[in-house]
Each structure stands twice: as C-alpha cells, then as structure tokens.
C-alpha cells in the first residue's frame, strides 16, 4: 500500500486540526421567529453546553407542555468531548503515519460521527416535539412540535430553523477537505 502524497498529508493534518475548533465554537443552532419575536430567538449547541436564549425558549415552550431544555437533558455533552478527541487524534496520527487505509478510516469516522449526530438529534427532536406534558395550558389537537432536522418549519406562531453553526461549518470544511484527499488518493492507485 502506497503512502500519501505529501500535499494530502498536510491536508489531513489541516482537517484534523480544524476540528479542534469544535471545542471553542458552537456546532449547531436552532432559531425561532414569531410575530412578537421579530428579532428571533437563538439557541446554540456546543460540544458540552448550550448557550443563547435557552431560558426564553423554555418559557415560551412550556405553554404547550414541551420539556425544559437544559444541559442535563443531553448525556451527549458528557462524552462528545472524548469522541471528538479520539477522532482528531486519529486524524493527526494518520497524517503522521500517512497510510491510505488510515486516511480512509479517518474520513469514515467523520462521516459516521456526522450521521450519528443527525440521528441522535432526530430522536431527541421527535421526543421533544411529541412527548408533551398532558397538563399543558395550550393543547392543539393533532399538533406535534418536532423541530426541523435541517432547514425551516412553521410550528404554530413560530417559524423554526435548525442548522449548523460556525463549528459545524468548520467540521463540514474538514469533511470536504477529506473528500478531496480521499478522492485524489483513490484515483492515484
């Protein structure tokens, strides 16, 4: 098995190091707009915490019986930092060792993590939107409030948006770099 092109070794290292930003930037965001919130409400999801208008969103959502969003709601926050660390470590290692199979594995890990996170978010969103307090003040028959996975969705008087934040985009860039690496290495055999 051949070694990597020198340029691809550098790219793999860059991709791995870019992912370090996940520890310093928000990865995902959920926004809400309503007639009385023209400026919008924004919640940011980090690797191990939440920030933004979480309290206001909780205040609004309790009328329809949605659960209180808090750090304790997401066990992911306790282990995601290690998962990321392992993947980044593996990336750096594959840049040093520079074996093709390692680079492919690194790319595979990023993709698996991405899919894992999306599936996880969908499951959380389903529960958050469907599993409502039966004693809630406002009950609209047949209405569920599952937030969109990616993109926009109208929920009663709120338009909601879900999508990557800075950290999420940087990881996307890492993934794109890795696609370049994987494709060029694949064509080289």
């Amino acid at each position, binding site marked *: 098995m051949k070694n990597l092109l020198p340029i691809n070794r550098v790219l793999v290292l860059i991709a791995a190091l870019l992912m370090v930003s996940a520890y310093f930037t928000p990865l995902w965001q959920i926004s809400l*707009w309503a007639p*009385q919130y*023209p*400026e919008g409400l924004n919640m940011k999801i980090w690797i191990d915490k939440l920030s933004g208008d979480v309290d206001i969103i909780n205040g609004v959502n309790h009328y329809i019986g949605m659960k209180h969003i808090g750090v304790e709601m997401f066990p992911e926050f306790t282990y995601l930092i290690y998962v990321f660390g392992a993947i980044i470590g593996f990336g750096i290692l594959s840049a040093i060792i520079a074996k093709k199979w390692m680079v492919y594995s690194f790319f595979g890990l990023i993709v698996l993590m991405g899919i894992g996170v999306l599936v996880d978010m969908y499951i959380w969103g389903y529960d958050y939107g469907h599993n409502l307090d039966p004693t*809630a003040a406002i009950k609209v028959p047949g209405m569920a409030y599952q937030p969109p996975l990616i993109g926009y969705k109208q929920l009663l008087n709120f338009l909601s948006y879900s999508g990557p934040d800075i950290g999420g985009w940087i990881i996307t860039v890492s993934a794109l770099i890795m696609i370049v690496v994987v*494709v060029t290495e694949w064509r080289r055999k």
Partner: protein
Amino acid sequence: MKTRMWLLAGAAIAMAFAYGCKPKGAQSTISGDAASKVYVPPGQYDEFYNIVSGGFNGQMSVVGLPSGRVFKILPVFSVHPENGYGFSEETKPMLNTSNGFVPWDDLHHISISTTNAEHDARWAFGNANNTPRIARVDLTTFKTVEIIEIPNSAGNHSSPYITENTEYVVAGTRFSVPTGSDENRDVPISTYKENFKGHISFISVDPESGQMDLSFQIEAPPFNFDLARAGKKKSHGWFFFSTYNTEMAHTLLEVNASQKDKDYIMAVNWKKAEEYIKQGKGKKQSVKYAHNVWDEHTHTGVSTIKNEVLVLDPTELKDMVYFIPCPKSPHGTDTDPTGEYIIGSGKLAAIIPVFSFTKMLKAIENEDFEGSLQGMPVLNYESVLHGEVQKPGLGPLHTEFDGKGFAYTSMFVSSEIVKWNIETLEVVDRVPTYYSVGHLMIPGGPTGKPHGKYMVAYNKITKDRYLPTGPELAHSAQLYDISGDKMQLLLDFPTIGEPHYAEAFPASLIMDKQVKFYKMEDNNHPRALKGINDARVERDGNKIHIYLTSIRSNFRPDNIEGVRVGDEVYFHMTNLEQDWDVPHGLAVKGANTAELLVMPGETATLKWVPDRVGIFPFYCTDFCSALHQEMQGYIRVSAAGSNTPLKFSTGEAE
C-alpha cells in the same frame, strides 16, 4: 470529477446562504395615502373622541382619532399631582374606600353610556381592578364625579359593562373570595370549592343624574369572571359573563385552570332578577363599602360608607342564571350589533364559537340541558351554537363589530386581527399587529350602531416600534382603515400607561356641550370667595384658614404673617376668572403635597403643616398671563408658641 467537487462546494455555500433567507422583520408596508388619512390639518378637529383606559396608571386618556393625539390624562383611581387630584382636601374623599384612602388602582375597561344601544356619551365608566370600584366620569367636564366600591368582590375585572340604556353597570369578580362574617371569611384556602363565592354586582345608574347605586348582587359559583357584555335589542334583558377556572383551582392557575376543554359563558336574565327583587326574594347582607360623589357646586367630594347589599341566590331562584359551555378559558364575550350573536373568545381554543340568542332561548324553553351546576342549568353546546369560526388564528381575545355584518377578533399569540363574516363564519381578511394585540376597538363597536371606519389595536408588546427608552417602553397602538374590504394599516402611535379596553364615539356628540368654566354664582363651596374684597386669613385654634383669590396676575392676600410651626394651614383658593382656559395653580415651598390646579370659578384647598421657621414663597404654576412670573406671595412662619400677630395684606408697601 472536478465538476462534482464544485457541485459539492456549491451545495455547502447554498446551505450557508439558506440561513440568510430567514423571514423579514415586521417592518410594515404603508400604502401611499395612509398619511393623508390620519392628517388632521391645523385648526381642524379629530372626528372621534377615543377614551382609553390607562391600565396600571389608574387613569383614562383622551385621544383623538384618526390622529392618535393625546388631549388629556384624566385621573380616576390614581392621584394626579399635576392637578392636585387626590391631594386637595376636596378630592381626597373621592379615593376613600372601606380600606381608607387608596391612592392607586388598575383601570382596565371603559364603557361609554348608551341610550337604545347607541352612544349618548354622557358618561364614561371605568373599573378599578385591584380594590374593586367603578367610577363615572362626566364627559362635559372630563372629571371623575363618582366612585362606588364593590363589596364581596376581589379583582373587579369583569366590569364596567353596561346595559343598552345604561340601566345597569356590572361588576363581576375575577377572584372568587369567601364572604360574610369574619368567621366565614377566615377559612383555609384549600376549602376554595366549599367556601369561596363569585359575586356579580348590578349597579343601577340614574337616567338623569347618572348617580350609581349598588342595586343587587348574584352569588355565583367560585369561578373567575373575566369579561362581560349586555345583550342588546332582541337580547336586551340578558347579560353574558365569560368564566374561566371553572376547575375551581386555587393554586398554579396557569396549569390547573387550563385543564377543562370547555368553561362557561354565564347568561344572566336580569329582568328576572328584578322580578325576584320586587317579590322580596333578595337577602340583605351586611357589608362595608364606600360611595363617593363629587358635587359640581361645592366642588367637593363626599364619601359615605354603606353597610348593606341585597344578594340573590341563583341556586334557589330559578330561571335567572344559565351556563353556556364555551371552549377554552374564554376571555372576551361580545354581542353583535343586532344582539343575536354572542361570541366567546376562548384564549386557548383553536376555534371561535358563535352562539345564537334565539337558539339559547329555544334551548331554555325546551330544557335542552346537558347537566346542571349547583342546580343551575348547563345548556347543550350544540343546541346554542350558531357555528364555529375555523382556523381563525392563535389566542383569540376580543371581538368588535363594524355594523356591516363583520366581526373583528384580536389574536394575542399570532399577533393579528382577523376579520370574519358573522353569518357565514368565514375568515375574510387578516392584518398583523405590532405586537400581540390585547383589546381592539372600533368607534361604536360594542353598541348597536358601530361606525365602521377605523379600528385601533392596543398592543401588549412594543419592542422595536419606537425610539427605545430603556427597559420600560410605551405601549403601542395601531390604527387601521376598515372602510374597505381589506383592512389597511394607517398609523402606529404610543399610548399612556397600559391601555386595555377603550371606546370611541363621534366628537359631535359632546364637543359643543363642554363646560368652559364654572359660574361664580353657582359656587357653593363653603369657603369660596366671590370677590377679592373677602380675601382674608383666620385662625381657629391651631388651624389657619387662608381665603385666597387668584386672578390675573395676583394672589390676595400675598403677604401673610403670624403662622406658627405645627399649625395646620389651609389655602382655600378660589379662581375668580370667568373665562375659558385660564386655570391658576398654587404651589407652596416644602409642602408635602402636590400643587393645586384650580379651574375658573372653582375653589380648592391645599393643606400645609409647616415644620420650620422661615419665609415661604408660593406661586402660580400655570402660565396664566404675561405677568405670570409676578404672580407670587410670601408666608412667614414663626416658632411654635411665638406671638407674631396674624397679619395679611396685598399691595401694601412701606
């Protein structure tokens, strides 16, 4: 291969831009001629008087429509240092209650007097929400002339709605409370269902003088009574009260009072109640409440404490109270101009139910009941229903009418007003409000004769509408043109206090009836002066009475000596002017009270207890003439026990 990579990159960029496509802010678009529709040229008048509740400022404001200009802050339940209301000796009794002097209240709703279900605009009524009272304002003087306290009530929210000839003004209690003797009232809160009662008061209004009298109360179940409307025309003789917390919860109502799918509109046959009273079926109950009346001739309020109320028990007296099931925690209950339709706005409901008065009578006649509440019939929802407005919006609160067959309902949660056809129940138009409209108002809207030209939205949230003023913002209102098929936003204006309900009527009804000044010869104030010659100072024990006149541009007397520290000094000031728009003010240095603002021909009294020796100036606060700055005087205060002789003078120099 390269193209595919570009495609990928392109997709990523597209996603990034998707976020930029978030919805536009709520900057409204005003179409071309809006400005000319609200422009009242200099020298011309607004078309409508708009009497607007001030909410937590306890006052009313007087606004012109369509300009949105504020003409007056009219003090009702709150002291008003600006003109001495609640500070002068004459006005203090107006704010007396069974709890003593109360300087503030929360005024939510306005009713303008009607005859044959049309505005006659003789009086404006307002409710005090906190210490339950109803006030009557004379619309020829724009003065609060009467305040009556409501016993057995707590949170006078379902008030002051009136019958079509202003026979009665009602007061339904928001908080049910235990009533009766001390023993009956000192009960555990957890015994709510057994011991608490929701009293509904009917206060009669004298058709000539307007004077109010607590006629009778109905002892209703311990629900929260929210709002009310009288029947009119064909439904005259009935009154409709919305109720929530029919769960009868006494804690965490946000959750516990929102559990039932339907609460009730309570329909009261008040003609039947009158019959029972004639038959002597009411029970007298011992209570304590204040009744304060302003006398336009003595320019003085008199407070009387009353001790009795007549109570009717609807569980024993049949055919007087019925319950109409209404989804879900209804806020407004409104009757259309014909009196046939009763609209319940369930603030948590997904539809708006419209009830038919004719069907209600039929259901009562056929005893078409789905059950009973403590012996009072609950009518069948379906039997009374005219129909439901489907998908109207979120959070319906109140409905007004244009007299052209349409109803307009305010939607708090979806922040819009929805126009719908009363007969067909179809939604025909909707406009956004900025933001979260509470009450809405059409001139004449609650009467049998609406003027369907303008509509005002009184909003609960302001946010970005005006230049920001720190954490507390003016409440916003919007004026719409509703003369066409589509509602059109014309104007966005800030308001005073926190407006809840308001009413408006054509200016022509009252503008020529305005009192311009009080006639000197009609002034029966016991300490009034009819001319400058009687100006004097008298000592009566430790009381000093200064009989003071004001006329452009002097006070008489203006040099006063012989007052001692600890004396009670009363300035009885008579404004001798007999011309429009010449009030005189009076302010005394260090006085622990407000100024007086005395209208021409009026007498008012400022009390001052000097606490130190010295010379104290007093002056006129209302810029009355070119020599206003010369309108001043001095009062000398000597030590307690000193023997400085009592002296007063004007225009005497050494």
